[in-house]
């Protein structure tokens, strides 16, 4: 064990010693441990105020879902040939002296890191259709390099991108040409693994996690549509050929005819020393009514550790039992060693839509800070059962309040009491209030707590930073014989999901007044820092601003956030994530905003930090997300110090 720690320390020291050289950002989360930490320190709290745009690139791959797109179009699109809206959450990678980014039209751009000039592009030719998602989504690309490259042979370094129709493409990182030895002529049809259900493809929106010569891959599906869906297996593929090395099934074989999904749609992390893969597992279908799913079903809605070589499960920690709220495990856990009580503990921090921070021993899955089972409200929906208890964490403090914040007087007043009237008619029993036929106030709901961006950590100090959203949604089950009529009246934006195969359909609505104002009290989004050595919260500040119709709401209201932070060695936190299309630098010590800039749309992707030719860059993808605002863009923008 001591040898392992020394090796880790040596690797960290080596990375810290070389900031003058090119410093990469090689994975979706910056590194395999999902620390989102850069050892670079050229941009400091003292000079960040002078940060300016170094370059900006527009890829052309953007759709607002309304206007025709000039440029490529493959296959049938939506009404009048307009593709669905684009949701662009791709973290750019800086490797191989090149910045690589995948687009929501499923193209790869290889870009010069200091100028933004395009070196090459690769077009997957994917259909621009909303097959499993309402929007065209992409969270980027992955990079692999042969440990012992062969001179003169192509594809010794590769870039991978997935598509909505579940194809995984591999191209040469230098030329953008397909790697013929991967899959069939550079394309692996992931739907070949979809043997259980063929209604929907297994969309590949999250890039694979690359470790050694292996790609770890989950998938995204069409949520809330059917009771029985494809089981959420995770695959380990050969990076050269795409051949399956192993797969891990999150659902036992005996219940796969009753449920499905429990898939891994978000990013994963790897402990390279322990050869452990950490996967955030989502909830099983059809999510909001689970009478057919055993209450004590393990692994679902969990963080689970697998052996990277065999796929054998080493441990699994369930975060929500019998998850009736779709509170998925949704972000790669952050791996960090914590100095505590004179010991070095190999830990991980798992964020969640629940708003809890689960700090676990990453070798065993046991809690470092206590997780307590507490009784929770029980469902009264016929046929359904609740888990009698749910796991609660008191330390570190939850990122959101334990109960919903209550009716916002201003929203209530301007709507003639709509908010308070509606709240009185809803089931409200605090945390884990189950879905109901009358409608339940759910806090946090499936869009609350912390989303797929997760948190970031400074591994030297154990300071952990995470953004969050305070959102109230109403969950309502609708008897099957009424569902079709209600859904037809409600239209496409009514929040209806059929959950076919169950006695109920489902309606999910955000608790807004008729003017579109949130009915719950602000702040709507926060960013907080924690000392992982003690669990203490160091600061907690409203983050971002709501911008509606162009008007900025007060800073104290914060903004719903999607995306996550990165930390640099100089003590800065860089983050987009807010509704107001701004990117910010925050002082790690105080939580105060030191710098901000306007970009074309909400920057919901994790930023990337890298250095090239002695200069540090922070690059954001400003693509937008329909959950935050209607604003979309195709902008990649890099910031650096002047000169």
């Amino acid at each position, binding site marked *: 064990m001591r040898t392992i720690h020394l090796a880790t320390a040596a690797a960290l020291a080596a990375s810290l010693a070389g900031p003058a050289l090119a410093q990469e950002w090689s994975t979706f989360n910056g590194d395999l441990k999902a620390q989102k930490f850069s050892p670079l320190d050229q941009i400091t709290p003292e000079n960040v105020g002078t940060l300016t745009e170094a370059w900006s690139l527009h890829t052309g791959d953007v759709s607002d879902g309304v206007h025709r797109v000039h440029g490529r179009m493959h296959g049938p699109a939506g009404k009048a040939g307009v593709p669905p809206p684009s949701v662009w959450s791709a973290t750019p990678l800086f490797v191989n002296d090149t910045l690589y980014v995948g687009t929501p039209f499923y193209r790869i751009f290889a870009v010069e890191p200091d100028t933004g000039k395009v070196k090459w592009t690769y077009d997957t030719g994917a259909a621009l259709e909303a097959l499993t998602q309402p929007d065209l989504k992409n969270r980027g690309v992955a990079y692999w390099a042969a440990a012992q490259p062969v001179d003169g042979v192509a594809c010794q370094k590769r870039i991978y991108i997935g598509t909505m129709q579940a194809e995984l493409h591999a191209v040469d990182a230098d030329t953008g040409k397909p790697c013929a030895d991967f899959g069939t002529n550079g394309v692996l049809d992931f739907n070949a693994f979809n043997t259980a259900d063929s209604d929907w493809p297994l969309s590949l929106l999250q890039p694979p996690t690359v470790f050694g010569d292996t790609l770890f891959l989950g998938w995204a599906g069409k949520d809330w549509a059917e009771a029985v869906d494809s089981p959420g297996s995770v695959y380990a593929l050969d990076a050269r050929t795409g051949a399956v090395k192993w797969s891990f099934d999150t659902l036992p074989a005996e219940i796969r005819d009753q449920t499905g999904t429990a898939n891994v749609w978000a990013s994963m992390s790897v402990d390279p020393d322990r050869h452990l893969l950490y996967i955030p597992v989502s909830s099983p279908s059809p999510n909001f009514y689970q009478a057919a799913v055993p209450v004590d079903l393990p692994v679902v809605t969990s963080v689970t550790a697998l052996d990277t070589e065999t796929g054998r499960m080493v441990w699994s920690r369930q975060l929500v039992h019998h998850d009736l709220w779709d509170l998925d495990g949704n972000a790669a856990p952050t791996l960090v060693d914590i100095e505590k009580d004179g010991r070095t503990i190999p830990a991980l921090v798992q964020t969640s839509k629940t708003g809890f921070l689960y700090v676990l021993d990453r070798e065993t899955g046991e809690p470092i800070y206590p997780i307590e089972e507490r009784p929770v409200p029980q469902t009264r929906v016929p046929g359904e059962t609740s888990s009698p208890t749910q796991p609660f964490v008191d330390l570190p403090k939850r990122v959101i309040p334990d109960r919903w914040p209550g009716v916002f007087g201003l929203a209530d007043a301007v709507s003639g009491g709509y908010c308070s009237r509606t709240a009185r008619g809803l089931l409200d029993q605090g945390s884990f209030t189950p879905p109901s036929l009358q409608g339940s106030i759910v806090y946090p709901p499936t869009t609350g707590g912390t989303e797929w961006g997760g948190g970031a950590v400074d591994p030297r100090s154990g300071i952990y930073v995470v953004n969050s959203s305070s959102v109230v949604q109403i969950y309502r089950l609708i008897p099957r014989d009424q569902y079709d009529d209600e859904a037809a009246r409600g239209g496409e934006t009514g929040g209806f999901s059929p959950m076919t195969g169950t006695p109920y359909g489902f309606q999910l609505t955000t608790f807004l007044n008729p003017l579109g104002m949130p009915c719950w009290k602000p702040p709507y989004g926060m960013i907080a820092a924690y000392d992982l050595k003690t669990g203490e919260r160091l600061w907690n500040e409203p983050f971002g601003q709501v911008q509606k*119709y162009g008007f900025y709401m007060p800073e104290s209201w914060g903004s719903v956030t999607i995306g996550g932070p990165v930390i640099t060695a100089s003590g800065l936190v860089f983050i987009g994530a807010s509704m107001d299309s701004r990117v910010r630098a925050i002082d790690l010590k105080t939580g105060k905003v030191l710098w901000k800039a*306007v970009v074309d749309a909400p920057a919901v992707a994790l930023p990337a930090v890298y250095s090239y030719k002695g200069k540090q860059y922070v690059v954001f993808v400003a693509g937008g997300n329909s959950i935050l605002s209607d604003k979309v863009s195709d902008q990649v923008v890099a910031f650096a110090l002047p000169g």
Partner: protein
Amino acid sequence: MALGAGLALILSIWNFFAPVEFLAPTASIAGTPAACLAIAATLALFLAALVLAGSASNRLLVGILLVGMLVGILGTAFTGRLIESPLLVGLMALCFVGWLIRLFAPRARY
């Protein structure tokens, strides 16, 4: 008042088209309803100021215009606050000074 409102109108038109606001590079309202509102409000103020300058003898009209312009100045300043345009707020302050002068020196021409 006409000077302040005229400059505010030009500023609002700029803010409608520019990717970031004039002298407020961390805010953007390009193409938004807020930008349209600012243009409409400053245009109305500008026109009212011109009418007021030529209507000193009609006391009823002057009274109506002064009340309307006070509401317009305060509302536009509040809009300036909500769109994070300190320059627009400043120009409304200039208009307000003009409004006060006009109120207490009714025979002056501004």
